[in-house]
C-alpha cells in the first residue's frame, strides 16, 4: 500500500480484459492489481502475447476493461462513456505508437497540433507551443514536411511532440523504438527519459527492448496476462 495515496496516478484493481471470437474467449489480461505513482518512468516488459498492448490500450482509454477497476489521474475508465473517454484521450494521456501513426496528409506541424485542436484549443497558441517542442527536439526545419519526407527517427520525434502537445499527465509509448535502428532508438529512449526527469511526466513504455532499462524507475513484467513482477527500480 502506497503511504502517499495522493501520489498514485494509476490504480488498477482486478483489472481484466477478455475478447470473444465466436465461441472462443481470449484473455488479454487477468486480475491485474497495480499502483503506479506519479512521475515514474515505467517499463512494461513481456513476451509477445503477454498482455502489454492490452494493458497499454486500457491505460490509453483506447479500450475498456471487461471487469475490474481502472483509475488514471482520477478518471474512472471502467465506467466512462464514449464522450468521457474522448476527453480522457485528448487531455490526460499522450500515445506514442510503434508505427508512429502520423497522418500522411498532414504536415509535421499539423500532426502535432491535431490533438490540441481536437480538444478545442486555438490554433495559434497551439502552434507556439508546438514550435517550442520542435525546437527542443531539433525539428524546426521539418515543420512543413509531410511524414513521407521524414526519417524514422524524425517521425517518432514528431509523434512524441504530438503526444506532449496537450500536456497530458501520462505518456504511453507502445514499442517506441520497434521500427527504429539502434541509434535512433537510443535517442528516443533518452528523450523519453528526459521528459520524465526534467519535465516530471509519467512515462510508461511497453517494450521488448532493453534500451529503456537504464532509465526505468518502475518495472512491470507481464506473463500470460498477469503481473509477474511489479516493483520500483533503483535508478
Amino acid at each position: 500500500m502506497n503511504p502517499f495515496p495522493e501520489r498514485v496516478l494509476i490504480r488498477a484493481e482486478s483489472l481484466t480484459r477478455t475478447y470473444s471470437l465466436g465461441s472462443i474467449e481470449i484473455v488479454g489480461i487477468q486480475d491485474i492489481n497495480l499502483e503506479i505513482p506519479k512521475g515514474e518512468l515505467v517499463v512494461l516488459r513481456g513476451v509477445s502475447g503477454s498482455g502489454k498492448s492490452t494493458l497499454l490500450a486500457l491505460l490509453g482509454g483506447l479500450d475498456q476493461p471487461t471487469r475490474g477497476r481502472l483509475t488514471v489521474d482520477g478518471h474512472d475508465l471502467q465506467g466512462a462513456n464514449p464522450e468521457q473517454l474522448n476527453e480522457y484521450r485528448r487531455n490526460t494521456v499522450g500515445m506514442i505508437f510503434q508505427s508512429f501513426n502520423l497522418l500522411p496528409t498532414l504536415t509535421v506541424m499539423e500532426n502535432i497540433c491535431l490533438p490540441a485542436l481536437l480538444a478545442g484549443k486555438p490554433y495559434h497558441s497551439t502552434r507556439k507551443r508546438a514550435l517550442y517542442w520542435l525546437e527542443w527536439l531539433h525539428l524546426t526545419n521539418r515543420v512543413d514536411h509531410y511524414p513521407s519526407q521524414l526519417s524514422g527517427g524524425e517521425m517518432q520525434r514528431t509523434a512524441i511532440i504530438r503526444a506532449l502537445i496537450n500536456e497530458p499527465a501520462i505518456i504511453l509509448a507502445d514499442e517506441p523504438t520497434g521500427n527504429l535502428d539502434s541509434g535512433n532508438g537510443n535517442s528516443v529512449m533518452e528523450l523519453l527519459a528526459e521528459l520524465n526527469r526534467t519535465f516530471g511526466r509519467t512515462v510508461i513504455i511497453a517494450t521488448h527492448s532493453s534500451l529503456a532499462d537504464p532509465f526505468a524507475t518502475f518495472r512491470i513484467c507481464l506473463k500470460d496476462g498477469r503481473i509477474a513482477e511489479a516493483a520500483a527500480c533503483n535508478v
Partner: protein
Amino acid sequence: MQRLIFFLRTMYWFSLRNLRVHPFRVLAVLIGIAMGAAVFTSVRLAVDASMDSFTRTFDLLSGHADSTVVRSGGRVQEDLVATLWPHAAVETASPLISSYVTMAGRDEEPFLMVGLDPILDFPLRSWQIAPSSGDTSRIWFQVVTSPNTLLLSRRLARQLGLGPGQTVTLEHVNQISQFTVVGILEEHGLSLVEGGYVAIADLATMQEFTGLQGWVDRIDLRLKAGATPQDLENLRTMLPPGVRLEAPAETKESGQNMIHAYQLNLSMLSFVSLFVGMFLVYSLVSLNAASRRRELSVLRSLGASSRMIFAIVLCEGLLLGLLGWFMAIPIGSFLVNYLVQGVSSTVTNLFVRVRVENLILNPWEILLSFCVTLFVACVAASRPALLATRIAPREAMILHESAAGVTQSDYRWPLLGLMLIGLSWPLAKLPGLPGFPVAGYVSILCLVIGFSLLCTPVLRWIGSSLPFLLRRIAGEPAFLAARYMRDAGNRTAISVGALVTAMALFVALVIMVHSFRHTVSMWVYQTLAGDFFLRPKMAGINLYQDPLPLKAVEGLKQIRGAEIMPYRHLELRLGKVPFEFEAVPFDSLLRHGQFLLLHGDMGTIKADLVRGNGVLVSEVFMNQAGLGRGQRFQVTLGSTSLDLPILGVFRDYRTRGGIVYADLSRFQALTGDLTWSGARFFFSRPPQDMKEATDRLRAEVLRCCAREHPIEMISGVELRKEILEIFDQTFAVTTVLLLIALVVAGLGITTTLTVLVLERIRQLNTLAAIGAGSGQIRSMIFWEAVLMVITGETIGLVCGFLMAHLLIDVINLQSFGWTFLYVVDWKALLVSLPLILGTALVAALPAVRLVLKSSPALVLKEH
C-alpha cells in the same frame, strides 16, 4: 464558430488532401456524378423549354379571356357574338379563327395564322405594329378594311424574307391565295406565339381564305368584375345545342398533362444516371474509409469523437457531389442544346406543336438538380460514414494493417433484397396518381435495390463454388480471382450493384422498346392498312378542323383502279378527356385491315360494327375515359347526340389521346355531315410495282383535285415507314440516356478495381515475391473484373426482364394509357451482352496497369 473552423480545417487536412493524392480516382467519380447531374438537369430543362413554349403560346392566344365558347368537333356561328355581347356579365366577346398555313411552292415550316376582329379583340390580346413598318394607324386601318392583308411577326418576316409591301402566296386546303404584308409586329404579346412565328389578319380575311364565312373557331369572352357562377350558367343557357362554355385552361391542361407525362418518364430515366453515380460515390467514400482505416483509428485515439468521424466521411461524399454538380455545368450546357431539339421535335411529333426558340434557365430546375445531386451524394456517403464510426480507437495500436479481411456472411442484406423483390409486384398493382405512376416507380426502385443486394451472396457463391472449375479452365489466376470475390464482400458488391442497375435498365428498355416497336408495327400494318392516304394539307397540325372541299371529294369519287375508303375525323372531348373520333366504313376497313383487339371478338361483333350498331374504342380511351366494352359511348355532335354501345377495345398508339371508331354511314345518317376528312385507297389487286402505282394515283389526284386545294398525299409504305421512323427518333433520346448510365457504371468498375488493387498492393507484391509472373497477376485482376461484370450482367439481366414487365404493364399503362405485347429481342440482347462485357473489361485496364508498378521488394519493405 471555432468548431466550424476546426472542422473545415480537419476536412481540408484529412479529406481534401487525400483526394488530391488520387486525382484519377476522384476524377472518375466526379465525371460519373457530373454526367448524371448533367443528364438529369438537361432533360428537365429541355422538356421545360417545350412546356414553356406550349404554355406561353396558349396563354398568349388566350390572352385575358375568362371563358371560351367552342363546339365539339366543329365551329361556332359568328352571330353568337351578337347574342352574347349584350349579357350584363360580358365585357367583351371576341371571335377567333386560327389555322396553320404554309407558303405555296416553298418548303417552309408551317406557321400559325390568326384571324381576329381588331376592335373586339383589343381588350383580350395585345399586339402592336412596329413603327418601322410605317404609319401604324394607317396600317391598322388597312388590316381592318383591305382584304388579304397580313401582319407578320418579326421572326417570321425574317425567316420568309418578307417586308411591308411585299406579297406572299399562302396555302390552305380551301384555297391558295396571295396576301400583302402591310406591317411587322413588335416583339411582344401575340407576336410571341409559337416561338415568335405568327401572322395576324382580320377575321373576314381569314374567313374568306378558309371558306368559313359566318363561322369561327371559338369566341373568347372577358367577363366583367363581379361576374358570378350564376352568370356563367345563364350564358350557357344562351348557347345552342352542341356549343359549350369552357375555361381556356381546360384545353391547355390536357396538352400540359401530355408533356408532363413525357417529362416525368424522361426525368426518371435521366435520374438513373444520377442513381448509378450514387454507387460511385458510395464506392469511393467507402473504399477511402476502408483504406484509411488506420488513420481514422488514429484520429479516434487522439480524441476525435465518432460524430466527427461521421461528419468527415459524410462531408467527403457531399464534397464529391458538390464538385460533380459544378462539373456538370459545362457538360449540361452542351447536352441541353442537343436535347432541346430532340425533345421539342418529339413533343411536336407525338403530342402538341411546340417551337422552342430560347432556352430559359429555370432557376427552380437548377436548384432541384443541385439538391437532388447533393441528396444522392449524402445518401451514398451515409452508410460508409456510419461504418467509419465503428472503427475502434484500439485499432491504432495494431502493427500491421490486416489485408482486406474475410467478410463474414451477413444474411440480413440478401434477405432484405429478396423481400424488396417480392414487394415490388404487389406495390406495382397499387393505383397511381393521374399521369404519375408513383407506385410503379417505387416498385422499380425496390426491384433494382433488391437485386443489387443479392450481389454479395452471388459473388460469394462464385467464390466458393467455382474456383476449382475456373482453375481448370484458366489456371491459378482465375482461381485466386474467384477466392478474392468470395472474401471481398461489400467492396466489390457496390460496383457490381451499379452495373446491375445500369444493366437492368438497359435490358428492360431493350425489351420495352422492341416490344413497343413490334406492337406498333403490327398496329401500323393492320389498323393503318391502306395503299395510299390523302387528307387536307396540314390536317394533322390543324387537328382536322377543315374537311376536304366538296369539289375535291367529287373529283376523288371519279378515280378508278382503287377502292376509296373515306373517313370523317373529329377532335372531341368527353368531360376533360380529349379524344379522336373517326367514322369509317367498317366493311371496307375490315376487309383490308384489322384491329388488335384487347377485349371483344371480331367474329362476334363485326356484323354490328358494319351496321353501325356500336363503336370500337382504343385502350387509351378506355383507361382515360373509364369506358370499356359493354358500356355506352355518348357524345354530342352539334345538335345531334351519338349514343352507341362499346363493342370492343383495341390497341392503338396514337399519342394525343384515345380514339373511337364508328361506322361512317351511321354517322352520316345521324348527323347529316357528309364531308370527308380524308381518304384511304386500296388497290384492287396488289400492283407489281407499288411505287409506280402510287405515283400514278398521286398524279391523278393532283390532276383532279389538288391544284386548287392543297392536299397531302402519302403512300401506305411511306406513311408506315414515317411512323416507325418517328418512333425510332423518339427513343433515340432514351438510348442516349441509357448509354450514359452504362458509362457511369463502367467508371464505377474502374474506380473499384483500381482501389482494390491499391488496397492489396502488399499481397499482390507478395505473390510476385513468391513466384507469380506479372502476366499472371494481371490476369488475376482481369478475371476479377470478368467475374464482377458477369455477376452484374447476369443479375441485371434477370432484373431487367422483370423490370420490362413493370415498364410495359404498369408505367406505360399509368403514364400513357396503353400496354403492348411483351416480345424479347434476343438478337439485340445476345449481341449487346458481350459488348458490355468487353467495355467493362476495358474499364479494368487502369487497375491492371497499376499492378506491379513499383518494385515488390520496395513495397514489401515499406509495409
